[in-house]
């Protein structure tokens, strides 16, 4: 990866982590949370699989671990796992519709959130919250996908 590509990818990841910390709030008994960091990471793996391989997955996972409140290694292992899945089915994903992509990436984002609560804060593990993460992640995939595509076309290949 060139310096420009590295800056583009990592700045988008830092932006995603900041968004995650800003866009979470409590409404009644439900806690709304987002997982922009995973959605943007998976977008990069999906869009440029030849650039984001195992070493980049480890580094991005470490960055997310360091800047978020999770234990070191949590995002590294999950990001590598999903990077492997996205790479393995790279050709299949090209045939998917936008909705199918949203369902796959939204489900995997909520899976990561669910594991986060299960390991870090088991007292706060709630099926209602997980369901809301799932719906939110599916909806958020669309702006992430189109926004990041525009961002990639403007800065990544410039």
């Amino acid at each position, binding site marked *: 990866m060139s310096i420009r590509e590295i800056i583009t990818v990592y700045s988008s990841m830092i932006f995603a982590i900041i968004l995650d910390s800003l866009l979470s709030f409590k409404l009644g008994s439900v806690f709304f949370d987002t997982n922009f960091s995973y959605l943007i990471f998976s977008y990069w793996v999906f869009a440029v699989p030849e650039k984001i391989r195992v070493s980049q997955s480890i580094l991005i996972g470490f960055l997310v671990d360091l800047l978020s*409140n999770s*234990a070191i290694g949590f995002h590294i292992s999950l990001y590598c796992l999903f990077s492997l899945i996205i790479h393995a089915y790279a050709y299949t994903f090209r045939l998917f519709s936008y909705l199918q992509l949203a369902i796959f990436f939204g489900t995997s984002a909520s899976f990561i959130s669910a594991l986060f609560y299960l390991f870090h*804060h088991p007292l706060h593990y709630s099926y209602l919250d997980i369901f809301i993460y799932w719906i939110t992640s599916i909806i958020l995939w669309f702006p992430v996908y189109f926004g990041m595509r525009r961002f990639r076309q403007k800065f990544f*290949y410039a």
Partner: protein
Amino acid sequence: MANETPRFNSRLPYVVACLFGLTLFFLDITYQTFDPLDRIKISSKNFLQSGLNNLKDSFVSVQINFSEKKLLINENKSLKEELSILSVVAQQDIFNTRPSDVSAPHRIINFDTDQYFCCSNHRMFVEKNEKSYQKGFVLNTTGLIGQIIKDHPNSFELILLSDVDHKIPIYNKDYEIYCNAEGSGFERLIICKSSKDVDKELIIGQEFHTSGFGGIFNKDMPVGKAISLIKAEDNEYLISVEIFANPLTDEKVFLFKPT
């Protein structure tokens, strides 16, 4: 130019990377191996926040210096500070507390409200000032909120009563219930485990105060009131106590030396 076609080579590096990540995760969860890294992160975050606050203060003081009412503003500020200390002491009914045992208000520099609402770690970081105690309890204008747990280079880490790792010895005068109430991990809620057989109807609404054991909290400080009672296994009763104080109301807190 068209994108390069993705070529998937081998699963082995990914499997090794996953195992590497899991090992780090296990080490961190079980042995807190990366705690020094966490401390560096906290210190640098607090340092940055504190610097920003100081910068903001210096802008305000420059404005005051140009004002004709400079003396009046400064006097008003110091009187307000003294009054807030006195009101906190009076409100809490801490008869044994001398003004020398109370520090000037400490500004909150970092309080992760996401963690407070979603998770079990209820911690707060406050600035140090000239008169700081390394051990003691913490109040804001609404009441008792927690205690000092760690001394960082530029801040104090406070653990709130509702943090899962926190315990506070409390009692109820009328029914003579004594317990070490544990933080529930939920906002403004602690759990008191008692083996004393009490009637649910009677205990709900009863006030709990600090019992003074443990050497951190003074005796008879109001903590909260019982809101529910559940009979657990092995003949124990779980009394949920709603904390009176709300840590979200104030920008400043008061540190008290235990007497």
